[in-house]
């Protein structure tokens, strides 16, 4: 199905901005409102828009379903390991990343990597859910 040229051209300009905003919300999640889930939703939405404008094949070449599921499971495993370590480390006196300066991007210990893992997970899972629904594979 061929889409309108206006849609495609506007998409070329807007989608990178949407993705940039999503990444900003994820990375800045420990300093301002936002975080992994909200940022991940924005990223996932950008993937859905790409699917709707440029068609299924365009996004399949970029992110195949296999790749998405790999991202999902790896970020889940990463999340479980880091979160479990942070649960266990507080009272077992295991080494802990420095808290850092409040206000810096690299601060607040485990929260930044956890946010990134959640963001990747939510973005891919939103797109997977969408593609399952739209391809009638429920």
């Amino acid at each position, binding site marked *: 199905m061929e889409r309108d040229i206006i849609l495609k051209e506007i998409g070329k300009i807007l989608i990178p901005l949407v993705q940039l905003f999503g990444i900003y919300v994820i990375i800045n999640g420990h300093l301002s409102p936002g975080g992994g889930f909200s940022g991940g939703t924005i990223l996932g939405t950008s993937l859905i828009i790409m699917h709707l404008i440029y068609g299924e094949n365009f996004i399949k070449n970029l992110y195949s379903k296999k790749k998405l599921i790999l991202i999902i499971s790896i970020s889940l495993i990463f999340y*479980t*390991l880091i979160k479990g370590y942070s*649960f*266990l480390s507080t009272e077992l006196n295991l080494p802990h990343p420095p808290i850092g300066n409040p206000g810096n991007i690299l601060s607040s210990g485990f929260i930044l990597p956890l946010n990134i893992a959640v963001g990747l997970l939510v973005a891919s899972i939103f797109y997977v859910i969408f593609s399952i629904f739209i391809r009638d594979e429920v």
Partner: protein
Amino acid sequence: MINYIPILNILILILFSFIIIIVKNNKKVKFISLASNIFVFFLSIILARKVLTQNIITLSLGDPNNLLGIEFLISKPEAVIGLIFTFVMVMILWYSNFYLEKEVSENRISFFYLLINILLASLLGVIYTNDLFNSYVFIEISTLSACGIIILKDKKENIKATIKYLIMSTIGSGLVLMAIAYIYSITGHLNISNIHEIIITNYQFHRNAVLIILGLFTVGLGIKSAVFPLHSWLPDAHSSAPTPASAVLSALVIKVYVFMLIKILFRMFSYEIVNSFIIMDIILLLGSMGMIFGSIMAIMQKELKRMVAYSSVAQMGYIVFGIGLGTISGTAIAIYHIIGHAVTKSSLFLISGLLIDKTGSKKIEDLKGIGKEMPFTLGLFTLGAFSMVGIPILPGFISKWYLSLTCIEVGRVPLILIILASSLLNVLYYFPIVINGYFGNDNLEGKIYKAKKIPFINLLPIILLVISMVVIGGMSYNLIGLFNI
């Protein structure tokens, strides 16, 4: 390190369930799932041994003052229930390793193990946690994964049963969340021990709110644990699911919610508070109605798995009856019945799966004469049925006996009649299967049975379950002594 076993159990199960997503090979998936569950089982043994010597383990995560953090509290009932549940789960996984292909298509098998791992993790979470909101999250995870294992068999009735279950349990979880909102607005805490301290001194000023909270929790968790008038989803869901899944659902999933109700009624509130409201009488009434009507509806069923599922409704009636008596001994018997029934009902479901597979028919009447074909399997079924009916030493008898004693203790002697009537009704639907199975002849002529002989190694999980059932019955005196919340 032993103090961290509860969180380790949950983390290990969840971690391995995510590794299962990547692994493609079904054999490896089975191995990973079974190995992680066995590991968790051993950890639970260590935990239970520690708790038996030390009485109580608390584990604060996040915030040492547990004003904001999550707290796990493991006393003796939690440790024993966790131990029995992991044991039952290992046995069911062992069984499903050779059984599951018969009911579930090849490409969906890894989903079963993925969901089972998440399900067990969330069930253990509900058992261990001492935090209301955390328990809500675990309850939701367990409901969704339970829906997932029902729908693995891609048939019309499964989808219907799943949507029924999902809608009913959404109502239930909505009510539970509302109750949590109420209690948070009264006390400002989510930790059950902290709430208890505040509410024990202040409940006279909030009598209406406390009544609403009790009602919301009872109905919400009652829907999820299939207490009698709210049970309509259970027979469909439990009978249409693949057999290992129905064993998990019937033996473990519904029990966890009723245990949560016990924790809320008697640990968050107290015997004194709940007995001053009408709610305990209502719970008692629901329990006795469940005991009678669940059995009556089980008698009317024509399919084996449906009958066993309705029997679960009746057995939930016993547990709720024990809670409704509102005494320490009543609660102890309710918890004893939780573990006794978990072991018994899982073995009954697994055996009925084998029987159905052997005869190729779901109907009870086609089971006539099956005892000549597979006498040992039907013998195991008979033992389970004996426990349900209440033959001495087996757990079913013990709970009925102690329930009657407690009825006398609280001065409600007429209630013994209900227990007696329910036992007689149990005889009416379990014994025909056994008797017709051993002595019925009319199906034998000209009948070709589908399956070959079942190898002994495949029967072993069921044998272990039945042995543990007898052991639980034999150790009843010691076990009930542990369960005084």
